[in-house]
């Protein structure tokens, strides 16, 4: 019986994302047809890109960043806390960490560790503001984190000016924080042959964060409290969970991981926080957390898929297909994933309920028969 449950459970959990992707492909095909393009051509152009080692490296690198962002979001989601502010948290964290990294001189490992700790600290602090507002004044974290994003943008713009934290970057008209010296960089990994491009060393950090997330959520008392609060706040309170404390700790954790989002780029590629530092990663993280259903493995797949779409969209231009088609595809995927999971969830609850009923009936028939013969 248990075996049957879990086989069906696995089938069901695979069914939802498959359903969503098929649906998203269908909708995108319709969009492509409507704009006079051949869907199959476009899809195969994108898939063909996968063979290029340079694209493979890019996909892994973007996915690393997306993964960290999605985990930051997922930590809150598991408790029904919506940290929409990952975006502001990582930008502020990356900028300040970059400034610190460029300003100090430390031996190699310590230098990197310091930069990462500063980033986590700043991210946590920024998220913590929203947590304190929620706990003390009852302000929805959705609103406050969105507003804090704008404030973060303002602060970054203010500090990132010559004479404050920024210097002119030689050979461009960009400005950025002082370049982090060699000792504060994370070397790339030459794991994809056939290209001089390297995979971010921080991919290892992303994997550690993923495993840590899984472990804390599923195997610790803290994780149980967090999940219980997300599943039913009233039941959690009755079970002795201090919800206010949980909100604070969870937001701090989410913010600390958000602080890591800019690190692969900063420590593995740009070594400075300039005007061209990537933005909007926090929102990508929300989409991917939804896509991966807050599951560390699911998020990994979601991040890779997202990254694949992003990094191959340019190739569509060869076929004269607007690369923005990919945005439509991403949007539709997220929407259909949310809907497909809800459908599957309801179906699963119904199946289990009727299974329980059927099994009990069967049991009763046997006991009745035994009772009769005794």
């Amino acid at each position, binding site marked *: 019986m*248990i075996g049957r449950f879990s086989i069906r459970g696995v089938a069901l959990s695979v069914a939802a994302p498959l359903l969503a992707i098929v649906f998203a492909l269908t909708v995108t095909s319709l969009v492509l047809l409507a704009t006079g393009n051949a869907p199959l051509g476009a899809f195969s152009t994108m898939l063909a890109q996968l063979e290029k080692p340079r694209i493979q490296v890019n996909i892994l690198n973007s996915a690393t960043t997306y993964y960290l962002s999605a985990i930051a979001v997922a930590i809150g989601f598991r408790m029904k806390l919506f940290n929409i502010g990952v975006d502001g948290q990582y930008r502020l964290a990356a900028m300040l960490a970059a400034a610190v990294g460029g300003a100090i001189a430390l031996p190699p490992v310590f230098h990197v560790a310091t930069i990462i700790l500063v980033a986590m600290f700043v991210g946590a602090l920024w998220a913590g503001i929203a947590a304190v507002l929620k706990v003390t004044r009852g302000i929805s974290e959705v609103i406050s984190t969105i507003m804090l994003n704008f404030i973060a943008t303002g602060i970054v713009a203010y500090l990132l000016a010559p004479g404050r934290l920024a210097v002119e970057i030689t050979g461009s008209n960009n400005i950025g924080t002082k370049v982090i010296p060699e000792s504060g960089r994370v070397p790339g990994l030459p794991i994809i042959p056939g290209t001089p491009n390297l995979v971010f060393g921080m991919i290892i950090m992303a994997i550690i964060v993923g495993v840590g997330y899984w472990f804390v959520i599923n195997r610790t008392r803290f994780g149980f*409290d967090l999940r*219980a609060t997300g*599943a039913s706040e009233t039941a959690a309170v009755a079970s*002795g969970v201090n919800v206010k404390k949980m909100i604070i700790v969870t937001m701090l954790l989410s913010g600390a991981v958000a602080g890591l989002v800019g690190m692969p780029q900063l420590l593995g590629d740009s070594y400075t926080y300039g005007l061209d530092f990537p933005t909007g990663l926090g929102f990508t993280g929300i989409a991917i957390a939804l896509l991966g259903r807050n599951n560390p493995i699911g998020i990994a797949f979601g991040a890779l898929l997202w990254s694949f779409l992003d990094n191959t969209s340019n190739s569509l231009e060869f076929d004269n297909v607007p690369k923005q088609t990919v945005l439509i595809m991403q949007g539709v995927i997220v929407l259909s994933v949310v809907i497909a999971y809800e459908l599957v969830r309801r179906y699963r*609850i119904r199946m289990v309920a009727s299974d329980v009923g059927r099994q*009990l009936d069967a049991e009763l028939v046997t006991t009745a028969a035994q009772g009769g013969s005794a």
Partner: protein
Amino acid sequence: MKRGSVHAIVGENGAGKSTLMKILYGMYRPDSGEIFIDGEPITLSSPAVAIELGIGMVHQHFQLADNFTVLENVVLGSEPTKGGRLDFALARQRIGDLGRQYGLEVDPDALVEDLGVGDRQRVEILKVLYRGATTIILDEPTAVLVPQEVDELFGALLELKQQGLSIIFISHKLDEVRRVADDITVIRRGTTVATVKPADVNSRQLAELMVGSELPTPETRESTVTDVDVLVVKGLTLHDSVGRDLLTDISLAVHSGEVVGIAGVEGNGQAELVEAIMGMRTPTAGEIHLGSDDITTWSTRQRREAGVAYIPEDRTRHGLLQDSPLWENRMLGHQTQPPNARGILLDRKGAKADTQRIVDEFDVRTPSIDVLASALSGGNQQKLIVGREMSGDPRLLIASHPTRGVDVGAQSDIWDHLRAARAAGLAVLLISADLDELIGLSDAIVVMLRGELVATADPATVTPEQLGSAMTGAGGAGA
């Protein structure tokens, strides 16, 4: 069933009453079999279809928007419109007509949050009548009502019946069923056992049909009360957000081996008292002691770890995580203690093994401990909660309506467990709306009215009627 009659359906928890009703209301599809209305076979594919066919359902848990008026609640989902705008005048008139016709008058402009339970139920019935229901399903309508409200409800049902409506009445309370029903169908384990006339059976026979065995009584045998104070509450006062008294100067003591029952009409502060003792509300004044410790400022978790067990009033909101498997629900409330945790880590193996023990000992009917809590019937959920709270040798048990919505068989099991624990020295604070249960199990009874303890009664001598009048403030109960 016939038009213009009241047909009662009785059965144990998990016997299939709710499932049957959900099929009738179009929420589930049957695997086989047919349903007829006026001789026509019909397919009930959704609640919308059921409503169209004149079937209306009044759920056990009211489905009303508290911050809407009665009028708004009644029309919600089938709002009358005139030129795209809401036409409340028409609705108001229809509600007035319906109310007069069936004796269900409620002020259409009152806010639902200001209404009592009985009035809320009337609004629910009005809601289904407003949608043109000719067959009304009432799921455990009396569970939340006091005796006087039950009488009023039955008056209204009689009126509806005389007007030619059909009523399907689901209940555990057999006396009530016999009072109000024209026909009674007993179902057990998913099949019809018998259909009887109320005049032909007494409650005991009916109950025996239901469980297929003999009836339990909630009597405790010899006293096991000791003079060891376990719970002592002194001068407990609790204000709401605007400073009104929810609890006023409550003092009570529960000793080891003693069951202290709290009688009272629901909403007179029992829930608040329980939450204050559990640390879920901070009292304005007063002290709470557990054994030799002053626990007034302790957190809920500290209290639980110190051996306070808690069977909450509302198992769906406070007792369980519906979408989590049973073994995770076993941890809930005890997630910091063995066998569920080792240090800061969860002990999944220990929790699973202990869940299996509870399932076996407390006869929780489930195919596996991995199913979600929502898949279990109410009675089995309750047995799981009782089993969980009895685990780990608690010193004090706060039991809020421990057998509410639970069938006779499970009820007697739960009583047995409570008695056994009491004999072993457990102190129990029992809150129950079931006066027989309260009198049968308690060693002492206090009556609560408007947030105060107004009387005490000796369960050996007091009758349910005396308690009932003390609860409504009509007279003392022999204090």
